[in-house]
């Protein structure tokens, strides 16, 4: 854990937490992609998963709860050379951050969004998240969780996301390979990563997931939207993991000529003479 260029110094996660595997897979993926620490920016909101930027030697931004996506997207706009990756929780991404989630899929900036989906609010000690299963009781949902769980994959598809996948922290190799594909994808890529929370989610345990997940194989073609939506709706006894949908789309940068071409914004020097010309508008 402490080794390699993306080394971790110390974590505050519980022993046995699925977050460790996700962190290690992230490092593996970055290594496979040949990235250097300073070329990568890992962004989190607030929560257990959102501490990931603290535990990996890259640029890191731990912002506000629910607000991981806006700074990530803007950092990519400011510097297209950065590899921008969000690692944060289900509550952060789909709960408090729901509005940024839906609208940034529409924006399609070239970033990668890894959601550590433990189906619970971990850091605040176990309240229902938007993905908590129906009926699960918690300290706040004392009568059992009543809200229809949010299906992040289906939602992303409904909003036109071009890369949508699900992975499981318990299958590190599969997870790493999906991470690699997601980071390589040009545009907004969502990977919902099922992750046991050993302290607060006593329903969706490692065993619970292990029993249900199965890997999508070559017979599944992730290019058909309706098929992807049907696949995304599978949940219960059988839970598919793998790339549900993968389709090229023009990105935010593609649409704005001066961003697509030339140097990253951060390397440009403002052209004062040109700005001075604008005074003519007021003459």
């Amino acid at each position, binding site marked *: 854990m402490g080794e390699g260029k993306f080394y971790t110094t110390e974590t505050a996660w519980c022993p046995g937490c699925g977050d460790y595997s996700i962190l290690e897979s992230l490092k593996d993926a970055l290594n496979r992609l040949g990235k250097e620490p300073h070329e990568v920016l890992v962004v989190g909101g607030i929560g257990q998963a959102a501490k990931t930027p603290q535990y990996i030697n890259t640029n890191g931004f731990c912002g506000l709860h629910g607000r991981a996506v806006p700074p990530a997207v803007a950092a990519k706009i400011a*510097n297209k050379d950065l590899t921008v990756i969000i690692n944060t929780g289900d509550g952060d991404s789909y709960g408090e951050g729901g509005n940024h989630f*839906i609208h940034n899929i529409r924006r399609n900036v070239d970033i990668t969004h890894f959601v550590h989906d433990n189906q619970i609010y971990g850091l605040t000690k176990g309240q229902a998240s938007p993905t908590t299963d129906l009926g699960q009781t918690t300290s706040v949902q004392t009568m059992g969780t009543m809200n229809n769980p949010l299906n992040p994959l289906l939602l992303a598809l409904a909003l036109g996301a071009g890369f949508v996948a699900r992975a499981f922290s318990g299958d590190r190799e599969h997870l790493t390979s999906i991470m690699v594909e997601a980071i390589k994808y040009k545009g907004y890529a969502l990977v919902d990563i099922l992750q046991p929370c050993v302290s607060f989610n006593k329903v969706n345990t490692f065993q619970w997931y292990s029993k249900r997940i199965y890997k999508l194989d070559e017979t599944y073609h992730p290019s058909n939207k309706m098929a992807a939506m049907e696949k995304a709706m599978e949940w219960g006894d059988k839970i598919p993991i793998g790339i549900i949908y993968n389709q090229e789309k023009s990105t935010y940068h593609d649409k704005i000529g001066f961003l697509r071409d030339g140097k990253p914004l951060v390397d440009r020097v403002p052209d004062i003479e040109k700005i001075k010309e604008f005074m003519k508008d007021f003459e």
Partner: protein
Amino acid sequence: MDYNILIGGSAGQGMDTLAAILERVLKRKGFEIFTIRDYMSRVRGGHNFIQVRFGNEKLWSHRDCLDLIIALNDETIVNHIGRLDAKGYIICDDGLDYIEERVIKLPLKNTAKSMGNTRVSGILALAAMFKLYGLDLSYVTEVIENVFDKPQVAIQNLKAFNEGYNLVESVYEVTSLQKDGNILINGNEAIALGALAAGCMFYSAYPMTPSTSIMNYLAAKMEKAEIVVEQAEDEIAAINMAIGASYAGVRAMTGTSGGGFALMVEALGLAGMLEVPLVVAEIQRPGPTTGLPTRTEQSDLKFVISASQGEFPRMVIALRTPEDAFYQTIRAFNIADKYQIPVILLGDQYLADYTTTVRSFDFDKVEINRYISNDKYKGDIEYRRYEITESGISPRIIPGKVPGKTVLVDSDEHDEYGHITESAEVKVQMTDKRMRKIEALKEELLEPEFIGTEDFDVLLLAWGSLYGPVKEAVGLLNSEGSVKYAALVFGDIWPLPVKSLCQKAPKAKTIINIEQNATGQLGAVIMEVTGIRCTASILKYDGRPISSQDICEKIQGGE
């Protein structure tokens, strides 16, 4: 000479265009201009008006008394005739049945109809006004061609102008004494231009009156200036995006009004904690909440000064004039970069929307200082994002720009490396480090502008856009009677610069704060910081801008 012309009608009657033509032609002729706009929060109907004041000397504010009313409907006359000078005139259509000796009824609608375009009746009235004032036709053609995008529409309007010019006889003989070397600009445009001049490359915002025109101007320049203007899904996204872009190394800004700022409060603290430079324009309107969306007020001062949980350094600059708005916006970016703090530019609807003539901005004065230490950290030297320094300012490098060096920022309390800490000692050290930045900042605060005579009896205190009205009021007051007046008008307002205040206040027999709010917020801030108590207050909070006449009357009325 100093004339004040009101154009009134309902939304959608094209008063904006008439006023634009009027002020631009007058400006090119060499006049000084001051135009205010009074809109209702609706797109069509209602009652709106624009007042164009012009003269041969610099005008600092609007004035209430009118010399001419161009009435596009009855309501305009009814609402405003009370303010019309005894020797003034009203130009209106002869179909209106208002009877008054000052009314000049013209066949506006009929002439327009006979010209085959009912929409030109306003232009006819405007042309009549030109003739009435003895203004010649110079610049009219170029301005009209400029204002209308479509050539055929311009031609029709030009024709109408010529028709209208013949409808009346001249009464005045108005000429300008100077040559045009000015620009005609409003406060929000000046902010936007200032942002571009400062090298801002990222502006994210969510539409909100009266701040939207900043975004509109920047959006119009998006490709030419190569600035990304992003309409965010909400204000929370807007400010968090700006912080992300700034963290990544470009100058970034957001803008909004009080309600949107309310949604930005949490992230304002984020900028403070992460020590990421940020510029936020807060263009006030009357509250609470939605209030009067298209009108003016100065009631967010205490709010922006203490917005967000916890304690961190910030700067608040109240903008006083369009010129000030331009230069202060540039300065705001430099200060934000230097101290790595959020800087709030506090404007209001009055300043946002009034247009006035100002000297062309001096781009040679524009200095850009980024305070970035990338070069210093190339090589073997260790980088600590939150290095504890004497000044409290830690060296900043840009993520990705120094191989081998990474930049970690965290909204939890953190150590010098940006790592989360629970240490009591580090918490204190980091709080002290952040707060220490205020000390240096205080050294470079700009004192409030002093207006009036040094041997004053009465000291007026004001801030932001009241600069103009107060400046004119002091002139008026000192030209009458024996009581002597002076004023301090604050631009930098938080931290509060106290030198001039502490020097002048003891000399005053009376200290009056003049503000556009109900509770006297500047008075409260001054009291908190200095213990100086205002002996009287002039507070206006009806959503309409205060005028110098208002101020004089209230002072002389003994308030």
